[in-house]
């Protein structure tokens, strides 16, 4: 009888997650315009992707994005969280300041950066240009578009990691920190040998989630450049979206989604293994 309690959740999971996920995997083997009847094409959609240079650009961009987000916001978050742990008096104030960009809607953040910072007409870039400083809008150059978007997402994202790390650092037993001080450990030694090992499970989780989220990135790319110029900032999710809703190639879009899921799946397997090892210990 008690098993009935899981029924509502089970139904929701099947209807909202399992069926659409299975249908996406199935559609990856069909040619479908979203209107007429789907036609089975086997692995053709995957072969098309393999030969498509845009797919490889998008995949590379996702990998670059993942590397950036594994290093920059995590380092910034850890550093700021440790600072807040030392200067406890102003910690609450800084937590609010750092967290503020996280709660602003993505579309608004994107438009603010596009219009008030990057725009050569209405933004800081334009102001600098009028003072004779030749600064280009990074979103308009093929070499810098992806990094221009990453800066916006970093600004929006790192505060979240900072607050998570700060919460984790506060759980490190104070006796350990006190003992390190008594033993004469320096500030950096305390971080290296006491604090970081103390919050390693949180860091690991955040890193794995970063990999998953990095392969799902869509919003800022779509708002700021729609994958351009000349596909230079295309990522897998914008590529899938364009395939499904502009090219009316839903099967190809499903195949791209399957590739995205494979990266997420790999990260999840790593996470489960790490967790299992922690349980064993």
């Amino acid at each position, binding site marked *: 009888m008690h098993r009935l309690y899981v029924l509502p959740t089970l139904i929701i999971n099947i209807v909202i997650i399992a069926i659409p996920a299975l249908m996406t995997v199935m559609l990856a083997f069909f040619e479908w315009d979203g209107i007429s009847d789907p036609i089975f094409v086997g692995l053709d959609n995957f072969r098309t992707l393999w030969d498509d240079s845009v797919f490889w650009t998008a995949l590379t961009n996702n990998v670059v994005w993942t590397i950036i987000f594994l290093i920059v916001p995590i380092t910034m978050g850890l550093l700021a969280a440790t600072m807040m742990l030392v200067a406890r008096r102003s910690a609450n104030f800084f937590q609010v300041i750092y967290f503020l960009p996280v709660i602003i809607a993505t579309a608004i953040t994107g438009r603010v950066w596009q219009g008030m910072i990057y725009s050569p007409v209405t933004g800081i870039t334009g102001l600098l240009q009028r003072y004779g400083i030749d600064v280009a809008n990074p979103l308009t150059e093929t070499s810098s578009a992806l990094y221009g978007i990453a800066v916006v997402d970093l600004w929006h994202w790192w505060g979240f990691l900072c607050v998570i790390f700060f919460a984790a650092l506060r759980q490190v037993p104070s006796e350990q920190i006190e003992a390190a001080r008594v033993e004469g450990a320096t500030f950096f030694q305390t971080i290296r040998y006491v604090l970081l090992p103390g919050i390693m499970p949180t860091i690991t989780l955040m890193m794995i989630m970063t990999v998953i989220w990095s392969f799902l990135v869509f919003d800022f790319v779509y708002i700021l450049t*729609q*994958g351009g110029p000349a*596909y230079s900032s295309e990522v897998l999710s914008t590529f899938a979206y364009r395939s499904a809703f502009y090219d*009316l190639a839903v099967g190809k879009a499903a195949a791209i989604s399957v590739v995205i899921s494979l990266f997420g799946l790999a990260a999840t397997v790593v996470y489960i293994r790490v967790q299992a090892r922690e349980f064993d210990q």
Partner: protein
Amino acid sequence: MRKSSLAIAAMLLLGTAQAAFSQGGVSWWYEQATPEQQKLIQQNIIAPFNAAHPDSVLAVDYRGSELDKQLRVAMLSGNGPDVVYTAGPSYVAPMAQSGQLMALDDYAAKFKWQDRILPVFLKMGEYNGKIYALPKTYETVGLFFNKTLFEKNSWQAPKTLDELETLADAMLKAGVTPFAAGNADWRGANEWFVTLALNSVAGPENMNKALRGELPWTSEPFVKAIDRLDGWWQKGYFGKNYFSLTSSEQAADMMASGRAGMMPTGTWQFQNVASYGKKAGTEPGFVGFPSASGDPVFPLGIGSTFSIATRAKNPDGAAAVINYVFSPEVYGTMNSAWQGEWNIPLKDISTVKMASEVTPLFTETMKTLTAAVSDGDYGYTTWTFLPPATDSYLINGIEEVWLKKSTTQDFLAKLDASFQKEKKAGKVPAVPAR
């Protein structure tokens, strides 16, 4: 007691409304519209239609910019609206192919659409020899210019492509950006310029052959067209902020303020051109885009289309709604207040009454376009005549040519491959004979 009475009254009201709607209601899902625009539709279409057709109450549901996606899902499940409003002819072919749309030939005969609507537009709504869609609005792409700036510099509106290039070079020397253009808000703006290059350099005849599959897109006229367009980009005609500026307001402001001399864009920009010209105290001009021969080219475009769903609950009511939209009254009232979006393709617009605040430039341009279309002297916009994946590639691929990530030959080869694949699948919209 009061609460229960209210609840009963509300239920009765809802029930009556539901009963009335299921008996003779007509549903129409519309795209994004501001509250002011919704008011215009209410005043000029819904209210007069409902007054004249008490048995078929029209209800318009504003679905936002995602209408196309919502429509496709709803049509698949058989729950769509009666009046099917698509984003263009390229969406009609697959819907008609899968039996989601009703053939309109009987209604065309009943309402005498052949006598009232420009024949080319009836032809464009055909699939397998039957009419499935009617275009709501038609448009063209041409060349706006800052008349005040031209008079000040003794510049003449160009007629040939050579004159256009000489003028653009002179503007560059004078520190004026030749073309006010941008795509920061709408990447699709890229194809306005590809459309102009293909029509003015390769010519409508070659476009017609290519769209019918009689000439590959890799052939010489199209190579010349893309090379010429690329030449304009490399010389800096589009300015250095193309990817940062918006295609509508900021481009219009740039031309009106004199920072740019010309603006190659569509008739949908008339409203912005008028308001920014007023703000800057400058007068705008408009000419058909120059061509090699000197005769202006008017590429023909369609913004959206009307069809009737096969599973429509009230197909006769839906046909009556479409028929009502194709009237001189709706043309006059809607086009006066919402210029460029309601250029309904009527054969005869001599009886149309436009509001006094509409600029003569707009009225004259639309008359010229109507005459050009009637004479069969028109070109082809890529967003109307290319199938979806080919058009999507054209928009993004041209950036690769401009930014030297690809060559003209590679770009056209990929475009042709995509076009041939979609043509084989029956996804190319109908192309009327010339």
